[in-house]
């Protein structure tokens, strides 16, 4: 199997996010970064396939200089090679532009399976994987929590949780899957894995290398533009009424009437 996993570097999940001063972006000072947690399920699934079947695992990201760390992390986990698409002209792009760029890179090889996370936890748009499937003309199953490969048939059985039931989808490979929590339990890198990651091949590509029209992607090609990012309204601290039940009710009614003025 030739497997590609598209990953994104995102701010660590416990980060305190603030809008930047121009209100167009998030303020990146002091943030630390991780591999998008949903992408980790894709990496893990690829590695598990590789443990069973002769396979190669390529991790692909489009991102800034810093995103190389995320690729190295995946190489440390056991991926075989990495592709880093990096170009200043990609700034300000939307999900469609990202998908266009990734598609061009993915088309250069024949992959049997392409994994994405079901969404990136930073902008939560959940669009890139599906866009790529569409652009590549491949079938896809989104938000999978189980994958059984039938390599001799060239097919796979993917499960996804839908309202009140599990949907099992029989799909022909090559195909795109977006990964949901529950698919597997991602491993931690081993110490030798970490030390060897640096020797594994990491290819850096620009838009020119890929032959992507620079006007079709980045800020210029964006079909949607973020107008502004606002911090959520600060919630005032709650009010705990800690009395016996009948007094509590009385107090609650009083507060609703006199303070909240909703009664």
């Amino acid at each position, binding site marked *: 199997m030739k497997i590609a996993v598209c990953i994104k570097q995102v701010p660590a999940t416990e980060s305190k996010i603030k809008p930047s001063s121009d209100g167009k972006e998030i303020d990146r000072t002091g943030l630390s970064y991780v591999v998008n947690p949903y992408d980790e399920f894709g990496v893990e699934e690829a590695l598990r396939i590789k443990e069973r079947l002769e396979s190669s695992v390529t991790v692909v990201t489009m991102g800034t200089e810093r995103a190389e760390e995320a690729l190295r992390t995946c190489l440390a986990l056991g991926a075989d090679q990495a592709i880093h698409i990096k170009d200043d002209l990609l700034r300000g792009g939307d999900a469609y532009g990202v998908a266009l760029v990734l598609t061009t890179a993915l088309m250069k090889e024949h992959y049997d399976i392409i994994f994405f996370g079901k969404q990136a936890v930073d902008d939560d748009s959940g669009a890139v994987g599906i866009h790529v499937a569409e652009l590549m003309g491949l079938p896809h199953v989104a938000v999978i929590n189980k994958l059984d490969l039938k390599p001799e048939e060239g097919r796979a059985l993917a499960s996804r949780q839908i309202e009140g039931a599990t949907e099992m989808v029989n799909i022909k490979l090559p195909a795109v899957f977006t990964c949901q929590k529950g698919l597997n339990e991602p491993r*931690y890198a081993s110490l*030798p894995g*970490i030390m060897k990651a640096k020797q594994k091949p990491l290819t850096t590509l620009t838009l020119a290398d890929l032959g992507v029209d620079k006007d079709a992607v980045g800020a210029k090609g964006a079909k949607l533009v973020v107008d502004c990012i606002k911090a959520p309204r600060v919630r005032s601290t709650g009010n705990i009424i800690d009395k016996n039940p009948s007094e509590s009710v009385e107090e609650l009614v009083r507060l609703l009437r006199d303070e909240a003025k909703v009664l």
Partner: protein
Amino acid sequence: MIDFDLSEEQKCLQQMIRNFAKTEISPGAADRDEKMSFPHELIPKMAAMKLLGIAIPEKYGGAGLGAMETAIVLEEIGRVDGATALIVASHNALCTAHLYRFGTEAQRERYVVPLAKGEKLGAWALTEAGSGSDAAALQTTAVLDGDAWVINGSKLFTTQGATAGITVMMASTLPGGGAGGISAFVVEKGTPGLTVGKVENKLGVRASDTAALHFEDLRIPKANLIGACGEGFQDVLQILDGGRIGIGAMAVGLARGALEESIHYAKEREQFGHPIADFQAIQAKLSDMSSEIEAARLLVYRAALLKDHGDDFKLAASEAKLFASEMAMRATSQAIQIHGGVGYLKEAPVERYFRDAKICEIGEGTSEIQRRVIAKELLR
């Protein structure tokens, strides 16, 4: 030029272990401490990451790294849990290191491989009721009887005494011979004549089992002697030198935990209408803690680098352990002070860090013994 920066790989490793410690080790640490329960569930996870054979070559199932990476790992684990740090430290730097460094090829295959892969845990038993700091005064005996060594005696305070599958133990092969009559042996769990005695109820590192071991007419093959007969004490001293770097790293981790918790608390806690972090008295404590932690870490790194470069590191290891462990006591004590009454409660992690830090001043040579070692090197 001195390079104070870790390599890219070492930074990646540090980040990885930090993440692992935070998500896997930290959550259960307070509960394990309270109940004195060994972190059995962590062993397979740490084994898969090769944390149980850090400095053992890959050929023998280890990670093939060195003292520096061991120090990085132990600081990160110590940051959240002293007990797990002690388990990893003694397994790696005492038992496994002793068998790897002084064992025969056959012993490496038979013992180092399962230890480094984390299939078995290792213990290292030197201390006895009558011999702690004066370790060479041990009374346990080993007598050759045909093809077997027959061992009699008792060990005290053995880390992993109750949980280890493989124990390296020191016995006298020349009673009355002092340091010159001591030899090291390897004993497997389940060997008739080996019983686990009292498991101690302790101040700190409570999730790490500290147990007495009794050897009663225990017979082990002649081939279970490690190193040369009668030269075991020389080997013991070298192993302890290496182990001390690890204890220093664990102490740095505990102190860093104390500092990070204190910074967090000082920003949140308000008194006199201000976060207590606004008060200079609190700021001074934080500054002192931070400076001392940085100094201790550099001492630990220096000792580790000397060891990895094959240079003499005895003095550096003792200095690092002495300074780091005493520093950790100061830092964890100040952390409780910064937390006020809350810091004195079981709910506060700093209460545990304070109790855990104390073992660093005692195990693998007390602070008094470190000063003796250092002075001896200075004055020779």
